């Protein structure tokens, strides 16, 4: 129990609940069932992107091109649906996913096989992919009346009383948890982020793993591109502009170490939820939206400080050790 309380994930969950309760005391409407359901729906895109970003950060990388990939895939799916209204929705969604995958694999190839630094590669593709959104759309909007009704309706439609967005996000959480915990692929990412040289010693195919990690981040961004455009019923060139930093912020708040090698699915989910709560709660208690950005920043810095303190290391063990005395290490 004590160990559970010490976990960063538990602490963050408690903070989130405390925040909801505090805001609820000021404005009871905030804790109503429908308001909380809206909050959940609002957090889904951020959570899905944070999950993908988490896997990238675990390998000691970062994907700055996520929001641009999202925008490009979202714009393409909107154009596709408006030109060919007869196209089944599933095909449109798969197209968005495939475009994202392709863009992500380009990142992954440059980072994994050509061993270029992730921050530089994705900084470059961030601009390239965003630029392509302009080229493709000619700078024009695709507005709701140009899109087929089922295209727009899908994300907020309900299955067993819960929106599709929430179902998809739940599937993504389960999938990410399974991948990170129960597959060779996922475990290798942790090994790579922990000690890249050692990972090579034990024979992990680093280039291949990195390529598909960025591919996955791209695929998730692509799918989120469709969901984003459909949910807000508009596609324009500046969709999700700057959102990659919100995603990274969610990861950092969730305790995912930027230095790589550690981070959990629960952390990414809670980090995303926490930011969504701040985003939805501040207007309710009538805090200016300008404060929102500053508050998010303060939360990030606090999270980083907590991480740094717990990660502080002492010296190497050189003096002879006696195992019987120190065997209690758990």
């Amino acid at each position, binding site marked *: 129990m004590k160990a559970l309380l010490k976990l960063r994930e538990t602490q963050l969950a408690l903070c989130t609940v405390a925040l909801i309760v505090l805001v609820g005391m000021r404005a009871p409407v905030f804790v109503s069932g429908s308001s909380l359901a809206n909050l959940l729906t609002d957090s889904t895109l951020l959570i899905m992107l944070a999950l993908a970003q988490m896997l990238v950060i675990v390998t000691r990388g970062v994907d700055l091109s996520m929001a641009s990939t999202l925008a490009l895939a979202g714009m393409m799916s909107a154009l596709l649906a408006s030109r060919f209204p007869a196209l089944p929705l599933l095909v449109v969604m798969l197209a968005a996913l495939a475009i994202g995958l392709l863009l992500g694999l380009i990142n992954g190839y440059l980072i994994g096989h050509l061993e270029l630094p992730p921050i530089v590669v994705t900084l470059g593709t961030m601009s390239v992919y965003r630029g392509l959104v302009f080229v493709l759309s000619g700078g024009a909007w695709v507005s709701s009346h140009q899109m087929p009704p089922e295209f727009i309706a899908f994300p907020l439609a309900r299955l067993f009383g819960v929106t599709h967005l929430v179902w998809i996000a739940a599937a993504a959480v389960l999938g990410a948890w399974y991948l990170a915990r129960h*597959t060779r692929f996922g475990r290798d990412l942790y*090994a790579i982020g*922990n000690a890249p040289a*050692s990972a090579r010693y*034990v024979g992990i195919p680093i280039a291949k793993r990195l390529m598909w990690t960025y591919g996955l981040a791209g695929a998730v961004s692509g799918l989120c591109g469709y969901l984003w455009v459909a949910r807000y019923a508009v596609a324009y060139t500046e969709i999700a502009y700057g959102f990659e930093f919100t995603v990274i912020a969610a990861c950092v708040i969730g305790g995912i170490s930027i230095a790589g090698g550690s981070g959990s699915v629960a952390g990414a989910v809670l980090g995303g939820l926490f930011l969504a709560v701040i985003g939805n709660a501040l207007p309710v208690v009538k805090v200016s939206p300008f404060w929102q950005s500053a508050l998010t920043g303060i939360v990030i810095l606090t999270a980083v400080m907590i991480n740094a303190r717990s990660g502080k290391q002492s010296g*190497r063990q*050189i003096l*002879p*050790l006696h195992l019987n005395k120190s065997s209690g290490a758990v």
Partner: protein
Amino acid sequence: MDNNNNPVLRLTGISKRFAGIVALNNVALSVRAGEVMALIGENGAGKSTLVKTLTGIYQPDQGSIELAGKPVTFANAQDAMRAGITAVHQETVMFDELTVAENIYVGRHPSKSGRIDWARIEAEAEKLFARLEVTLPVRARVKDLSVAQRHFVEIARALSQDARVVILDEPTASLSQREIHELYRIIGQLRADGTAVIFISHKFDEIFAVADRYTVLRDGRFIAEGLLADITEPELVSLMVGRTIQQAYPKADVTPGEVLLEVSGFNHPTEFSDVGFTLRQGEILGFYGLVGAGRSEVMQALFGLSSSANGTVKLGGKEIIISSPAGAIRHGIAYVPEDRQHQGAHLSLPILHNITLPVLSRVGFFLRGRRAREQAIARHYAEQLELKATHLMQHVSELSGGNQQKVVLGKWLATNPKVIILDEPTKGIDIGSKAAVHRFIGELVTKGLSVILVSSELPEVMGLADRIVVMHQGRIEHVYDRAEATPENIVAAASGLKELA
């Protein structure tokens, strides 16, 4: 031993060069199933390179590796592992954030219908530790383990691979006596199972306790091979140390003066204990020990890099407190770190800026217009060190290892230190540059400097130092005067042997 004529592993004529430096030259080695082979040599004799060649991390330039009579080549570490050769490395291959059990199976997690079989991983890990008769919680994260416990994880990993050849690269370097005996027992088990073991150690009592045969390397060459039953410890030491080494090092004849630096009761919670020594004016004090004996840690603490160390430091008779490198530099202590690439030089800056970096405040705050003064300082030290470079604005990354080291030395000399601490100043640099660095160290003392020379190269320490401090497991084992130092007694002290028979 099932068949003496059929070694399970045989290496012939292995050579390996790195950028012109010969690391291995025509090395031969063979080991049979159920046999423990001790690989013996000084630091830098080529043992670690040989291990890396065997485990597929390096590919030999020449020569052949035969496994059970068939020639093999290893393109990468995984190939060697699949062929049944595993190593417990000197630099541990560990993933700090992963659990003990996962560290054993990382890179080859067993899975059941596409899903990692965690229950099996943990059960197998428990079984391995039971077999080793070691208690380790398999779910603990490796970052919470001690160095000794990490070794057991690595040995368990080697065992789990059903290896035909297990290489133990200085596995006992940081183990206590009791742990060492556990290791002996484990090696006995491996031998009984018909595994071939290559055992690398500097400690002769261990070699005689566990090994059947020996192979001696020196300067990357094969020197001798035979049964341990047919040789004595002193004979083995002289095979390993070999040459007479005094002449090659030009030690300037300076009679050390007054005591300049006095360190006493220097302690650190995990790294060293009760370290005390004195350094005289114009003296070269050698610090010898095995890798990981705590020498660099003592020096770093002395330089103000370690906050958890405590003790008394007197400089020129006055007690001083050093809490940061800037403080140490102010007191006239300079530390030239071992890891040139990461701690010593700013590789992407030009030579000029490297040399003047610690003394910029003396050049002036506004550097514009003071170019000439900055250049003069840099040129002075570049010339003194016989730096080979096209011009002073050349980037340090373009220089050879030896010349990089000269830049680092020049940088620290520019601070006009009283005491200069050199940590492995000739590690990984070619013979020619080595001689220049040695000559230079020899000359430093004629200018009234006092030098602490940390080195793992016995000839270097013996050739240059007035007195030699030998460290072992974080403690000072013995201090030898130049006259009484012999390779035999220094190696013995560094290995923790009290007296050599």
